[in-house]
C-alpha cells in the first residue's frame, strides 16, 4: 500500500475554488484517550466550548495502558504527524495501575523512537482528568504548535 503524502489532501482540492490559495498544512495528531479520564476531559472541553485546533483525532480506549506500541508505530506509518497518549493522573486509574504501566512503556517507547530518528516531541503522554477540560485544550494547542514547528512527519509514512 502506498502512503503518498501528496495524494492525501484531495478533498480540499475538490472544494477549493480555483482562485483560493492552497490550504495551509495542518498537523494530524492521533490521540489515544482513556475512557474514564481524558475522554471525559475532552468531552468537558467540548461542552465548555473551549476552542482548540481541529488537529487531533481522538480514539477512545478503555485505559491508556491499552495502547499497544504497535498502535503508535502504525499511526505514524498511516500518516500521523504526532501521537498523544493520555490517561488518568497517577493514583487515579480506573483499573488502579494501568497508567503507571503507560508511563513505563512510554519512556521505553520514546527512547526506541528517538533511536530510530523520530523527534520525541511527536510522541507525548499526558495525564488529563475528567474535570480538566482546559488542560485538554492547552495540551492539544501546545502539541499542535510544537508539531507545526517541526513540520509534517514524512519519516515513517511512505515506507510501506
Amino acid at each position: 500500500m502506498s502512503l503518498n503524502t501528496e495524494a492525501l489532501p484531495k478533498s480540499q482540492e475538490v472544494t477549493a475554488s480555483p482562485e483560493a490559495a492552497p490550504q495551509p498544512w495542518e498537523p494530524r495528531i492521533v490521540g489515544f484517550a482513556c475512557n474514564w479520564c481524558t475522554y471525559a476531559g475532552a468531552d468537558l472541553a467540548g461542552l465548555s466550548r473551549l476552542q482548540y485546533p481541529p488537529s487531533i483525532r481522538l480514539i477512545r480506549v478503555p485505559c491508556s495502558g491499552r495502547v499497544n506500541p504497535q498502535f503508535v508505530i502504525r499511526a505514524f506509518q498511516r500518516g500521523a504527524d504526532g501521537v498523544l497518549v493520555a490517561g488518568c493522573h497517577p493514583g487515579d486509574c480506573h483499573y488502579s495501575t494501568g497508567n503507571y504501566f503507560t508511563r513505563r512503556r512510554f519512556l521505553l517507547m520514546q527512547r526506541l523512537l528517538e533511536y530510530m530518528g523520530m523527534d520525541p516531541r511527536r510522541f507525548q503522554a499526558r495525564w488529563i482528568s475528567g474535570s480538566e477540560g482546559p488542560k485538554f485544550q492547552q495540551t492539544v494547542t501546545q502539541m499542535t504548535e510544537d508539531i507545526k514547528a517541526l513540520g509534517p512527519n514524512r519519516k515513517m509514512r511512505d515506507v510501506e
Partner: protein
Amino acid sequence: MADKLKFAFYWNASCGGCEIAVLDIHEKILDVAALADILLWPVAVDFKKHHIRDLPDKHIDVSFINGGTRTSEQREMAELLRRKSKVVVAFGACASLGGIPSLANFHNREEIFQRAYIETPSTDNPKGIFPQVKTALPEGDLELPLFFNHVYRLDQVIAVDYYLPGCPPTPDMIAAAVTAIAGNSLPPAGAVFGGPSTVCDSCKRVKQEKKVKGFHRIHEIIPDPERCLLEQGIICAGSATRDGCGTLCLNANMPCRGCFGPPDGVADQGAKLLSVLSTVVDSNDFGEIEKLIDQIADPAGYLYRFAAASSLLKHKLTGDGKSTVQAAERSQLEVAK
C-alpha cells in the same frame, strides 16, 4: 533412482550456522541422502549456478534458502531457485525474519560503508575507496553486486511456502520438516514449523511475580537456574517469542534471545517485548523508572535482535525525511515480483 526427491540449499546474508545445522542432524543426514538428491549446496557439494540455470522450471522439489537478502546477487539466486523449485522453505531466522544481518536496517548504506571502509580501526583506506557496482579497468569492466540500502527477509523478495525459524533451526525441526516433505504430509502453505505459543509456555522455570528493581546483562550476575530469568532482571525475550525450540537457551541458564520470531497473532516482536519489559519495572516514580530503563543497553538491539526486517519500524529514519528504502531499490523489487 528416478523417484528420489531433489533438494537445494542456498545461503544469502547469513553466518553459515544454518548450513552447519543441517549437518547437526548427524547420521540422519544419511537418511536425507538416501531419499534425496542434493542439486545445490555451496557449502558441501560442487554444483554451480549454471547447473541450476540449465534445469527445467519446477525441477527441484524443495529449496531451503537461509539468510537475509542484502545484495542484488542474493536476490538473483533467490529468484532463480524460486523458478526452479516446487517448494521454497525460508530456513532459519534470517530468511524468515531478517535475523541479525537486518539489524543493519537501523543504519543506512552510507553509514555502513563509512563504518566498514573508513572508520574501523583495522581499516587502511587513505584514498577512501568504496565498493562500486561497476569499475572500468583497461582489461574491461569489473562488476560487484549492488549493496541494497535495506536487508529484506526472503518473503519480501520471492514467494515462500514454509518457514523454519531459529538461529539455527534445531535438528529436530529440520528432521521433522524433511520427514513431512518426504512423507508428503505437508502443513498448509505459509505454515511455520515451530510451536504456536510462546517460549514462556514451554519454559520449566519457576515463575512468580515479575517485579524488577534493576536490569542486568548476562555477564554481570550468575542467575538462579530454577527461577524465571526475567524476574531476576535479565532481559529474556521468551514471552514475545514463538516456542518449538525446546527452550535450549534457558536450559543452559541463558535468556531467550527471540530467534523464533513473534508467536501467532503478533505482528511486531519488538513492540511486544517492549510492553513486557515495561510491565516488569517495579516502580511508579518517574525518576526511578527512567534510571531503570537506562539500564537497558541498546533497546532496539534487544527488542529486534532477530526480527528487524519484520518490524513495523522497518528502517532507521534518515535525516532528510525521505523514504528510508530507496525508491529505485523498491521498484526493482516490485518488478521482480
